[in-house]
């Protein structure tokens, strides 16, 4: 009563203000002794995101970025395996499951045909994702039976016009996927190897 609560609240703000400068001194000492920096360094960001942060905890975004968790998802991208002679082996078979499950219907796939026989090939000729419609739900990545479409971590996608992602912008190497989602990529790689091994064992049993 009598404004005591007000003063209490203001004192919290004031203590944060002073702690900011106190933290500056603490980090100055750490920089001298351990070479750790408060800003523009991973340990600085980790400290400001932790419970120990008492003063300022602003992330200076364009210069330093908050690390995203592995399961963070933004827009989808297509994974390709790098062949031995540098060719892109696109995992996508243009089966169209992703386009069917997509809730806002933002995926368009054009199947490619073999020019010699005129029959459809398991390769996308064109693949479009309207980035401005995509709601980042990740159902396409969840349903893809070939691990061909995955959710990206890159959120810096703002543009002056509507963004339509085509095959050029969507294709990213499997090494990139392994770098942003190491645990998932390792798990899927293991599953694929186990599947191949069981297939080989079955074929052997049939032959014998």
């Amino acid at each position, binding site marked *: 009563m009598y404004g005591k609560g007000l003063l209490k609240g203001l004192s919290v703000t004031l203590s944060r203000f002073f702690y900011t400068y106190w933290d500056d001194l603490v980090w100055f000492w750490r920089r001298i002794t351990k070479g750790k920096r408060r800003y523009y360094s991973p340990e600085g960001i980790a400290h400001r995101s932790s419970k120990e942060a008492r003063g300022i905890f602003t992330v200076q975004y364009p210069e330093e970025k908050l690390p995203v968790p592995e399961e963070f998802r933004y827009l989808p991208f297509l994974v390709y395996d790098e062949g031995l002679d540098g060719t892109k082996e696109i995992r996508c078979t243009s089966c169209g499951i992703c386009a069917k499950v997509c809730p806002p219907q933002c995926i368009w796939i054009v199947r490619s045909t073999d020019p010699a026989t005129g029959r459809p090939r398991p390769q996308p000729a064109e693949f479009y994702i309207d980035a401005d*419609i995509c*709601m980042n*739900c990740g159902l396409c990545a969840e349903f893809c039976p070939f691990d061909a479409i995955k959710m990206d971590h890159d959120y810096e996608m*703002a543009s*002056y016009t509507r963004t339509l992602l085509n095959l050029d912008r969507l294709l990213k190497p499997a090494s990139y996927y392994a770098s942003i989602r190491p645990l998932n990529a390792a798990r899927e790689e293991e599953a694929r190897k186990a599947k191949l091994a069981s297939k080989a064992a079955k074929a052997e049993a049939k032959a014998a």
Partner: protein
Amino acid sequence: MNPKDINLPGYEIPEELKHVIAITALDRLYNWGRRSSVWPLMFGLACCAIEMIATQAARYDLARFGMEVMRPTPRQADLMIVAGTVTKKMVPAIVRLYNQMPEPKYVLAMGACASSGGPFKEGYNVVAGIDKFLPVDVYVPGCPPTPQALINGLILLQKKIDKESIKQVRWYRKGPDSVAIPIPVLGPDLIDTRRIPDIKAHTLSSTSKTDDQS
């Protein structure tokens, strides 16, 4: 800010035009002032507004870009962040707010719904993209965009402001405006509120008829 950034015009002039064209530093100063005080209009339409609030708060702190002053009145705002689903009922109010904003004014479509309608793009009550009614400067995809993605869009807007020249901006030119002020057109994207009594009367009359038949 580094005074060199204001004084040195960073424009590329072709070699054959170097003695013809002179770019003053006034543009740089003028644009620096404008880009460092883009005040957004304070309104949110849906869940994207929560991310906009998070961007405004202490962890991301839009004050670092001079955008901390969210104006509650369109008369003092420079930027309209369309944060969320634009319903057909809301779009006349949004266009009206846009028309009340003084020049220069910018529009940032935040998130899938504002950019294109998103998951509701074929809905009966949602406008498929605010760009049908307003000239959008920056599109930020995402559902919703994270605060860092929004800041990335705002930095893109600052870059756009940096490229403008005081000699060419529309709002200081004489004569009629080159860009028509958008007026909401009554059509499939908009409910004509004046017809609500008619629709109501029509609906009621049809139900009473069926009652009679039964």
